[in-house]
């Protein structure tokens, strides 16, 4: 539908009138191919948000194909995507059956699912490692599927994904705990919500939800605040370490033939008719049978390259805080405040206290709409909000906070997932707008993405299963968790396993060195930390950083001054001479 | 014109007040407060809790000196460094030059605390000595 049609004109008029009634001027709207495009400039972020959300309502009401919000705030839009500094021809002229754009949990899980097939697969990731954006900046909760609004893709993928996590953790060798979560009632009248909660469970397909009394809760969680009045238990809620899961999927994908390309950003595409023929990157131009867009906060930019804009992302920032491990015995369940409203503009999604799989306690998250898509700065006000979560557990003190971090959710204006083949481009598949419950949904989304992609590839020829596909990944052992006998055997093989480098997390030299080898090796200090937890403990690398860097220097033959902490430009040390020449 | 300084002879860090004297030195003056002065007409130093403070203050106003500590590179392939110090205090104004010499120095033989790394450092009556141990590997 176009603006020029009578119906189109009416829709735009309704929309602009609505904005007018909210006092918003400066927005222009048009319709193209069934997509509502919003342009113009407004004075506040709040106005831009209203324009977008009202546009989503219009889209739903009039069954449009999508809504794209390009409205700027005082001439500002997001800071453009930063590009890797490298420019070469590594990928020039290469062709893969499937190219996945984005190495987060979705792209990596999809790669692993696709690797069941006898096809060539490449994952293009603009950072130096997998899962560095939203995928590692979340609380690792495998939601039960209660919070998502019934009928949404979030709800269906969440519940399906939650179930699939059991098998995924067994096959891929990552830790999955299912402590269940409890939505706390802070007022006795909240028990009247029970039928509402139960109905929500029924509608979404969440099993096992039930009421727990105040007394039972006090018995289960003696350290919980006095103010609790019982709650609603969701036993299928689980916890994983998101970094571990991304790497587990990635390592299994790599062992099944998937090629990973880091520091690789997509900067454009070429089409012929409705088919993407070439993908332009800073490392050369390649081609693909099918392209999977799992590009997180930049998924709409990738859609633009394909000439297929029908959604846009508005980033919503969240901050989590981690509390010292020694408080780990304080909680048995995930605990939070109930919210039936999904995430729609709620200032705190619910959030609460989550027991991390490593044993630390996580507070959060907050929720704040922002303009910049990769703004990971934290501020005093974020902690102020999180400290309220601390009130849930008597024993928590502000001084127990080890660290805090921020992430951004890729939210569409419809606030739901987009998981589908493109309606307009024949060889493009989308996994966009994957905000919470993205982690919980990942295994299910990955299955569907693979199915969509294979179906597209089958149009050009038969696709058979990979003969040597191995779904199993043997995780690297955590020596500190082994029995002494097992540990002795490792040390006998190599004494480096008996030399403890990170003493807060008890990680040996051998374990650190092993992360620098293998299918998806660590190439930075933070990469080592993600794979072994060396440097992630209470002293935050205070003692072990020099030792980790020395091991890396020895293993790679690099100079100590060339070992980076993380991405491009994150140098750690300089030699004295270089203060003259500059770094 | 009085000068205030903090004595660094020991961790107590007594606050000293130094009133520079005239050139003439007259003997026999008695201290007015704990610690004391030298001779009438000479500099008057107060605030020290022990005699070291007097020596320190006089030194600071005539010829301030410091012990310099640093590290030197060695020929160790592992990049081991040898901590060093000047065996006695050197003039404060020579510290920059001293560091330049230290930066150019590479130790090639093993050593233990007390071994001389550079004899007659900066042409002064001081050596640069090792303060740590290195086995030469």
């Amino acid at each position, binding site marked *: 539908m176009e603006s020029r049609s009578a119906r189109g004109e009416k829709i735009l008029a309704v929309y602009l009138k609505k904005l007018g009634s909210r006092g918003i001027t400066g927005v222009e709207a048009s319709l193209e191919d069934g997509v509502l495009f919003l342009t113009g400039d407004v004075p506040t972020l709040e106005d831009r948000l209203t324009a977008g959300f009202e546009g989503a309502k219009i889209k739903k009401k009039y069954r449009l194909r999508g809504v794209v919000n390009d409205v700027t705030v005082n001439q500002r839009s997001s800071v453009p995507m930063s590009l890797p500094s490298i420019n070469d021809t590594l990928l020039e002229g290469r062709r893969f059956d499937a190219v996945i754009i984005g190495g987060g949990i979705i792209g990596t899980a999809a790669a692993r699912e696709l690797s069941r097939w006898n096809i060539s697969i490449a994952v293009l990731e603009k950072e130096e490692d997998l899962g560095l954006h939203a995928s590692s900046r979340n609380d690792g909760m495998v939601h039960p599927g209660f919070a998502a609004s019934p009928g949404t893709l979030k709800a269906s993928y969440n519940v399906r994904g939650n179930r699939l996590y059991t098998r995924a953790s067994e096959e891929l060798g990552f830790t999955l705990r299912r402590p269940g979560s409890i939505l706390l009632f802070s007022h006795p009248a909240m028990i009247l919500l029970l039928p509402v909660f139960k109905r929500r469970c029924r509608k979404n397909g969440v099993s096992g939800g039930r009421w727990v009394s105040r007394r039972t809760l006090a018995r289960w969680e003696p350290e919980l605040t006095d103010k609790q009045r019982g709650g609603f238990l969701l036993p299928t809620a689980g916890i994983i370490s998101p970094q571990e899961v991304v790497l587990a999927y990635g390592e299994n994908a790599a062992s099944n033939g998937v090629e990973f390309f880091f520091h690789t950003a997509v900067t454009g595409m070429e089409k012929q008719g409705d088919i993407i023929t070439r993908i332009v990157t800073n490392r050369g131009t390649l081609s693909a049978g099918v392209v999977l867009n799992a590009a997180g906060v930049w998924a709409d930019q990738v859609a633009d390259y394909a000439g297929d804009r029908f959604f846009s992302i508005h980033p919503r920032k969240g901050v989590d805080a981690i509390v010292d491990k020694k408080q780990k015995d304080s909680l048995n369940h995930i605990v939070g405040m109930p919210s039936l409203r999904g995430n729609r503009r709620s200032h705190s999604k619910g959030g609460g206290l989550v027991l991390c799989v490593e044993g630390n306690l996580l507070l959060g998250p907050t929720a704040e709409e922002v303009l910049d898509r990769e703004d990971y700065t934290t501020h005093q006000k974020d902690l102020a909000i999180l400290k309220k979560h601390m009130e849930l557990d008597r024993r928590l003190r502000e001084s127990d906070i080890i*660290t805090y971090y921020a992430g951004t959710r890729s939210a569409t204006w419809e606030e739901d997932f987009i998981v589908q083949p493109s309606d307009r481009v024949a060889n493009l598949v989308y996994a966009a707008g994957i905000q919470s419950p993205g982690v919980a949904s990942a295994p299910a989304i990955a299955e569907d993405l693979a199915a969509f992609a294979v179906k597209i590839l089958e149009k050009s020829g038969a696709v058979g299963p990979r003969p040597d596909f191995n779904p199993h990944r043997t995780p690297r052992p955590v020596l500190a968790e082994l029995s002494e006998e097992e540990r002795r055997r490792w040390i006998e093989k190599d004494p480096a396993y*008996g030399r403890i480098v990170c003493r807060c997390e008890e990680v040996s030299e051998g374990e650190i060195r092993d992360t620098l080898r293998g299918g998806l090796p660590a190439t930075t200090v933070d990469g080592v930390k993600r794979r072994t937890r060396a440097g992630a403990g209470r002293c935050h690398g205070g003692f072990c950083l020099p030792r980790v860097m020395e091991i890396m220097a020895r293993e790679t033959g690099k100079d100590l001054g060339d070992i980076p902490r993380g991405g491009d430009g994150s140098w750690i040390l300089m030699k004295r001479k270089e203060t003259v020449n500059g*770094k | 014109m009085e000068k205030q*300084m903090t004595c660094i002879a020991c961790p107590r860090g007594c606050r000293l007040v130094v009133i520079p004297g005239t050139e003439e030195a007259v003997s026999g003056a008695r201290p007015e407060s704990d610690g004391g002065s030298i001779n009438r007409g000479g500099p008057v130093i107060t605030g020290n809790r022990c005699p070291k403070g007097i020596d320190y203050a006089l030194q600071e106003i005539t010829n301030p000196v410091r012990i310099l500590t640093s590290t030197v590179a060695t020929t160790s392939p592992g990049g081991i460094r040898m*901590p060093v110090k000047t065996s006695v205090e050197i003039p404060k104004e020579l510290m920059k030059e001293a560091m330049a010499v230290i930066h150019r120095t590479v130790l090639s033989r093993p050593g233990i605390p007390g071994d001389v790394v550079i004899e007659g450092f900066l042409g002064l009556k001081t050596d640069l000595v090792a303060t740590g141990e290195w086995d030469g590997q």
Partner: protein
Amino acid sequence: MESNYDVTVIGGGPAGMAAAVAAADGGARVALVEREEKLGGILKQCIHDGFGLFRFNERLTGPEYAWRYQQMLMGRRIDVFTSTFLTKIQRGTEEGFQMRFVAPGGPFGLTSPAVITATGCRERTGRQVFLHGDRPAGIFTAGQAQGFVNLQGYLPGRRCVILGSGDIGLIMARRLTLEGAEVEGVYEVKQEPSGLTRNLVQCLEDFDIPLHLSTTVKEVHGRRRVEAVTVCQVDEAGRPVTGTDRRIPCDSLILSVGLIPENEILDSLGISLDERTRGPGVDQNQMTRLPGLFTCGNAQHVNDLVDYVSESGAAAGRGAARFALGKRGAEERGTEETIPVRPSGEILYQVPAALVRHGEDPVFFFRASRSLEKARLELRSPGGEVLYQKRYTFLRPPEMERFEFSMTKLPENCGELIFHLEEV
């Protein structure tokens, strides 16, 4: 390899080595366990001087001080285990403490009736002082930066801002300047500097490095690497004063914001820590409330001088040897009359936390809670009798005071000892 030693010392720095020497001199068979490859603890990287003025009556550098103690270990009944890491400690029944270790030679265990923890401390991190903004590379704690400069020979940056006027920060201000980096300034959130006066002079004044009090770093800028920090002034309560933000371009931020005693291994033994010292309370023999468990050095409380660290280590060694060799009779263990020492007035904290009748005369250490011009310290019985008195002309919290007290001064029925400091 299961082995029994009379005394096992965990930690081979200045506290642990002193403890091992004293325990061996007390007749005990000693195991000294160190997780690094070399002994000396943090002294290996403290290449500056000022160590040992009281202990050896000389002005030594850290490595020299460590060397002296390493020499003392030889020729004594002390077995040294380096690259050895304590993984578990449990209170056994008769034999005492059962410990498990990991080392390049494999896991093994030791059992000892007496154990001394000399595990030192770690540095507070930026997150723990609620540093906000980006999280780039280029933020170091002062000790971490010191290790890079002195052990590896690398600089943390070209233009540094130092947050915290504690000794380590001051030492690093000088060290970085000598090595050719530029230190833009030292920023201190409190109204008074935290380090020893001597270091304020020798590290800042000597190099014209400005010290800004009542100012803190509130934000770090730079996505991959530090590009700038924003400082602001704070009021007496530490709250930011609006309108005082100042952005300072730099490429590294060095944090000297406090030390935290490393006592995590005590958790498994159920030993609680004093909130103010962050170490376990001990008596004058350095024994905790758990019979046979001793502590010393920076694990007990954060010291200013290594000489005092070694002194507490020696007391722990003597106490542990006496305990292990049964010189403290079984009837004394557990039924020992403990006299708590209660801080009063302007005392931030004092150690020891309690006295026992049998054992050495205590050496008290304390910190005033604020700077005092003229002060009087009194030890009193509950009845108000003044058992000891000392006057001070000048006290600062960063400079810990020491004095010796004779147990003979303690009356027969003394329920507690009041440790009182007031301005006069």
